[in-house]
């Protein structure tokens, strides 16, 4: 396992071992991140594959774009997801909704959870791209403000403002959705 500074150096040389280590370390969390945003395992896999492909191309260009691995990967994944939402402005629920059995939950609880997840995901889709990224990184990935600031390239103050506005907008969207249901 490489230390971080050495790892970055090896990565720029396209060292296979270093590249494999990065993939093993970050692809699972990137998959979860993508799944939370997209709600589909296949789409999440596609997002991860594309993210690492762009990561490799950035390394090959040797232009110093990659200065920190994890924030860079999340930023690429976030951009891919944002583009996906732009291309598919109407969020389409697939008929074959994934219903993986969870032995800890009863079937009706499983359905409730699934519906609740879709509702929150729709509300997140209604946020701006920056607000969505800050909310997800902050409350689902448990990142600190400094890391988020580094990932999205904005000062910490701006990150806090984005978080505040994002929460307000999210609350409004969830209440609105409840009113529609009622």
């Amino acid at each position: 396992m490489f230390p971080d500074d050495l790892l970055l150096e090896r990565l720029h040389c396209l060292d296979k071992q270093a590249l494999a280590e990065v993939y093993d370390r970050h692809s699972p969390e990137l998959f979860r991140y993508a799944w939370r945003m997209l709600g589909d395992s296949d789409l999440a896999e596609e997002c991860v594959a594309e993210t690492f492909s762009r990561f490799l191309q950035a390394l090959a260009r040797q232009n110093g774009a990659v200065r920190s691995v994890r924030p860079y990967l999340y930023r690429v994944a976030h951009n891919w997801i944002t583009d996906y939402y732009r291309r598919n402005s109407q969020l389409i629920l697939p008929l074959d909704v994934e219903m993986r059995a969870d032995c800890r939950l009863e079937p009706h609880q499983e359905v409730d959870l699934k519906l609740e997840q879709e509702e929150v995901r729709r509300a997140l889709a209604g946020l701006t791209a920056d607000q969505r990224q800050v909310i997800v990184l902050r409350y689902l990935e448990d990142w600190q403000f400094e890391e988020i600031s580094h990932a999205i390239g904005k000062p910490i103050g701006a990150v806090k403002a984005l978080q505040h506005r994002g929460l307000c907008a999210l609350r409004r969207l969830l209440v609105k959705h409840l009113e529609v249901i009622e």
Partner: protein
Amino acid sequence: MNGLEAHLEDELIDRIAVLRNAPDRDPLKAAAGKVGYLEQASYLSRMKDPPLAVSIQPAVRHNGWISHVHSLSKRKEQYSMFTVMTTVMVLVALMFGGGGATVYASQASLPDQALYPLKTASEDFRLSLAGNSQTRLELLLEFTDHRISEFAALKAAGEPAPQETADRLQAEYGLALQLAAGMDDASHALIRNRLQDQERIMQMLQDSIRSGSDPVLEQVQAMIRRHLADLEQGVQDPETFRRRMQFEYREGQPMPLLPASQTPQCTGNSYGPGPGAALGTPSCAECTPVQDGTGPGPGPGPLQYGGTPAAPGCQGAGGEVEPQCTGNSYGPGPGAALGTPSCAECTPVQDGTGPGPGPGPLQYGGTPAAPGGQGAGGEVTPPGGQESGGGQPSDPGNPQPTAEPGGEQYGGGQPGRP
């Protein structure tokens, strides 16, 4: 942040937390993804030129002009949907698109509507842009169709046909005939066919009128028939027809219009710059101009379409000229008498003292000026005392010719039109 806000935020965070339960990743897909990733890395490490950036770097983006445009206004929170460029585009659209839409809308207007002047102006503009005679002729015929359609639409609406439209139609016919005179026989046939169609339409319009008749429509119908007769004459004698048309319908000048009730009885060719012509039933046998040949005399008198020809040779320089004849005559005659001249009545007195007539003004659709009636020193006595040699229109309310047989009136004074 107060307690309530903190509570609400906690609730919200709890709701978001439902997304924490992400499913486990399929190990096979994860392994396949890793293999593909490493293969791509090997491929890239062998490449001399790495691929272009997925996201183009800001340094190479062609966004300089965008930032320049934005720098025109430095205000923060500017409404991005209304930039300077947008303003310019909206103004251009309003200037050209809006004007074009108005002109387009005017094409369906009728003479009694507000947009009608725009319609006629656009037609004039189109005519002025036409490059060659054939195009101009086709445009003019198209415009005559418009006029006929307007008559039909007005009739369907129960509105009277306006005189101005008939005047405009007459002017369009005049220009078309003038153009056709310089063209081949195919153009003559084109006009003739169009006139025949329009004559049929006018006949149908007249037939559809149950009570009374519209004098303007009658006048238009008579006008079309006259032109058809002219064209038929042109078939018999194309050369004469061409010369006559080219002279009578001078381009750019309006053509006097005769009311239907005053359709000339004689169709003598009044060629030449005769100052006027006499209405009536001229007879060439009665023409005995007296000439002394002392003065040039002529001036372009009013052209009286289909009217009585000028007295040839009666253009004796000035003096009291009493043209004795009308009929087919070329050349400048100072004037002609209205009525039914006879040789006995036409006794030009010439003293040869001065040049003849000046050009009488042509009045579009109105009364032709009395041309040349002012031949030097000639005593001109317009009928009713209202017409002078200068071509003043006669009483609009009295479209009947006021000249009495034998009365002296030079310049072929044509009664004015209401």
